[in-house]
């Protein structure tokens, strides 16, 4: 937060905020914005898509829902769907959190000239941070709302305001988590807008992890860059490489270390919290229901069946008949929100229980021995492939 305040030049409004963000990013690494913006754009899109789906399916008691609201949400979905069709892939949308390594979106990102450089950098450095990255990967595949980074400029359709528009996570929160060096003490996130009780999907707690986790690896030079958007896609790429590299010896990489450790701490705290909350909530549920569970249909807690939704909202049937219903049959999209919600709730509740010590302990593990990391991540990897398969069946792609 302080960095923000310190850097701000305009005192008025979001223009100032935005300008400042761009300024920081531009100063930190000229390559960043373009690349990240594309990533953040797809993230935003995924998030909005997921929210929209959940809005359509969330049951309202008795009363007839507002047609205007449904039409607007439907238009939103259509628009995103059209965009995706043009890009030739529905997959990333359906499986935002843990796409398979060959995720087409990654290819899309590689198209960006700047990304080529960055990904190369990643692979070059991966041997060391890979374990860390893997450990980061495990917790985050989080919610169906990969939170998007608060301030990366969006490309294409979203030249200026979009990133801010679509920022679910309060900028302050992300900044506090990422830019504040004292963030090894996890604090329960505060929702952005003193949301009404009806507000759902408080996914903010999960979001900082990927962002803080990946960025330092890519942009060690500037701390302020940490608040610059995350790119799960990049994380994914790294993770893909990780499978083979995680066991390789980790040469000391000085410039990275501090950043990694902070990032890691942040990440670990999230992970620890997630694990703890999950173990509390559902002790018998084994790893599949772990942090990655949000995207695994079989292990999801009993979701309201999509068909039930459809039959209940009779008008939706009519309204949305033109949208491929297979999308709605895919549980994670609609149910993961619920999971994320409970997980988020758990996080918030339990976060005080996670002491800095624990975090430090967990912090050391990746350095001391990658083995446990790998083992803890194993289920998740399985999930990935399973999911991939499920997706192929469901989407037919």
């Amino acid at each position, binding site marked *: 937060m302080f960095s923000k305040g310190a850097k701000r030049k305009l005192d008025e409004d979001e223009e100032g905020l935005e300008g400042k963000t761009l300024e920081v990013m531009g100063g930190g690494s000229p390559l960043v914005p373009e690349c990240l913006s594309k990533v953040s754009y797809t993230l935003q899109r995924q998030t909005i898509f997921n929210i929209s789906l959940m809005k359509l399916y969330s049951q309202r008691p008795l009363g007839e829902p507002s047609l205007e609201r449904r039409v*607007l949400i439907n238009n939103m979905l259509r628009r995103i769907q059209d965009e995706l069709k043009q890009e030739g892939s529905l997959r990333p949308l359906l499986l935002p959190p843990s796409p398979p390594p060959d995720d087409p979106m990654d290819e899309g990102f590689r198209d960006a000239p700047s990304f080529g450089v960055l990904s190369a950098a990643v692979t070059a450095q991966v041997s060391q941070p890979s374990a860390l990255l893997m450990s980061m990967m495990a917790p985050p595949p989080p919610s169906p709302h990969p939170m998007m980074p608060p301030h990366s400029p969006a490309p294409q359709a*979203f030249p200026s305001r979009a990133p801010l528009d679509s920022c*679910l996570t309060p900028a302050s929160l992300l900044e506090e988590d990422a830019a504040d060096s004292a963030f090894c003490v996890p604090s329960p996130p505060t929702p952005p807008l003193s949301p009404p009780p009806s507000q759902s999907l408080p996914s903010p707690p999960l979001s900082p992890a990927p962002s803080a986790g990946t960025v330092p690896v890519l942009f060690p030079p500037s701390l302020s860059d940490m608040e610059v958007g995350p790119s799960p896609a990049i994380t994914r790429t790294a993770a893909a490489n990780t499978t083979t590299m995680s066991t390789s010896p980790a040469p000391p990489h000085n410039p990275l270390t501090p950043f990694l450790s902070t990032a890691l701490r942040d990440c670990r705290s999230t992970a620890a919290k997630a694990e703890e909350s999950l173990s509390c909530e559902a002790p018998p549920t084994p790893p599949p229901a772990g942090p990655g569970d949000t995207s695994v249909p079989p292990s999801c807690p009993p979701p309201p069946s999509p068909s039930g939704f459809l039959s209940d909202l009779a008008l939706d049937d009519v309204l949305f008949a033109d949208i491929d219903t297979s999308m709605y049959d895919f549980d994670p999209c609609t149910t993961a929100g619920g999971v994320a919600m409970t997980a988020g709730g758990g996080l918030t509740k339990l976060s005080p229980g996670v002491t800095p010590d624990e975090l430090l302990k967990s912090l050391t593990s990746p350095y001391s021995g990658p083995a446990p990391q790998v083992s803890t991540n194993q289920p998740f990897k399985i999930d990935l492939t399973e999911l991939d398969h499920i997706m192929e069946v469901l989407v037919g792609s």
Partner: protein
Amino acid sequence: MCSVFHHGRGSVQRASICRLKEKIKEDRETEGADIISTVEFNHTGELLATGDKGGRVVIFQREPESKNELFSQGEYNVYSTFQSHEPEFDYLKSLEIEEKINKIRWLPQQNAAHFLLSTNDKTIKLWKVSERDKRPEGYNLKDEEGRIKDLSTVTSLQVPVLKPMDLMVEVSPRRLFANAHTYHVNSISVNSDYQTYMSADDLRINLWHLDITDRSFNIVDIKPVNMEDLTEVITAAEFHPHHCNLFVYSSSKGTLRLCDMREAALCDKHSKLFEEPEDPSSRSFFSEIISSVSDVKFSHSGRYLLTRDYLTAKVWDLNMESKPLETYQVHDYLRSKLCSLYENDCIFDKFECAWNGSDSVIMTGAYNNFFRMFDRNTKRDVTLEASRESSKPRAVLKPRRVCAAGGKRRKDDISVDSLDFTKKILHTAWHPTENIIAIAATNNLYIFQDKLNSEMH
């Protein structure tokens, strides 16, 4: 039923806006039933009607000015309260039909009685509000309670007389306009011919004669043959204040259509389409949602249109379709919060807007119990707050200011992050001639009055 709280009189204030009084509706068992859902002055401003979520209508009357009391220049007191709509159940759709009053419109007064239209999602009702302060006495064949007398006891004839009694306000249903709307009625508007009115739902607009309840004419129908093709809904509609053949309706895509009933009986083809081209630089996922028009109002002169969308209020000239004449930012600081507002559904809130009597100032609501006023001539704007804490009776309203997160904050400024999004002012009304405004803040109705200078408000 209704409790009114009179607050003590404060000292003389020099300010522009004073709070006259706050009406607090009695809490009812059903949660939220007392949330005000519409506010409307009648054509003289003497009466003010509010409707609430529980289907109840409360009418306030302005007290005649008294000369002994310097400051009691027409306070509004409860005049009558009645239950307008009851919850119903649609057995075909298995859905509950809420009793919530979506809109109230007064008919121009033509005799001693007042008439008003009230509507919920489906059914429009015409109510007669009349006073009685005399009662007949001395009937020959029935006694004071109306019981028939035993004829054998009637020995002489007398002339019945009218005796004065305590004033009684009677409200009686006169017409029921039902079964014409498949979707939710969002607007009703009485025509300047005083004989017809229209009712608009999400996809259709119907024209009614006030005396005929069993049929209406469909004048706009945007329902596509195939509902899959539906991308746009009607959000509000209103008749021109002087030309009975003209009306306007707004859509969820941010457009306004002016229709002329002389051209065709079915006004599916508009005469004019008012639309602002999208600014590509501010395009976002939420562009369409925030451009959806939540309210449209003709100016009293009939020359201008005032519309409200999520972030702005716009004034349109009927002679210029290409873009609005004026655009006022209501709460632009929310532009960076749209995703959260989408997530918590606030982005679908339908804020209304109002003109002052001379069409020089516009008013509309915002969050955190704030409402905004824009002076079209001086371009000054002000944010005011309707709350019990900040506004004592007769106290002057202090302008409020919201600063965006991180911005330089002055004393008393409120930051965007601490805005309360559950306290929203959706419904406001401006007295037709004077500077008196009515603000509905959830279950409280605030009536503010211009005090001495009428420069701005």
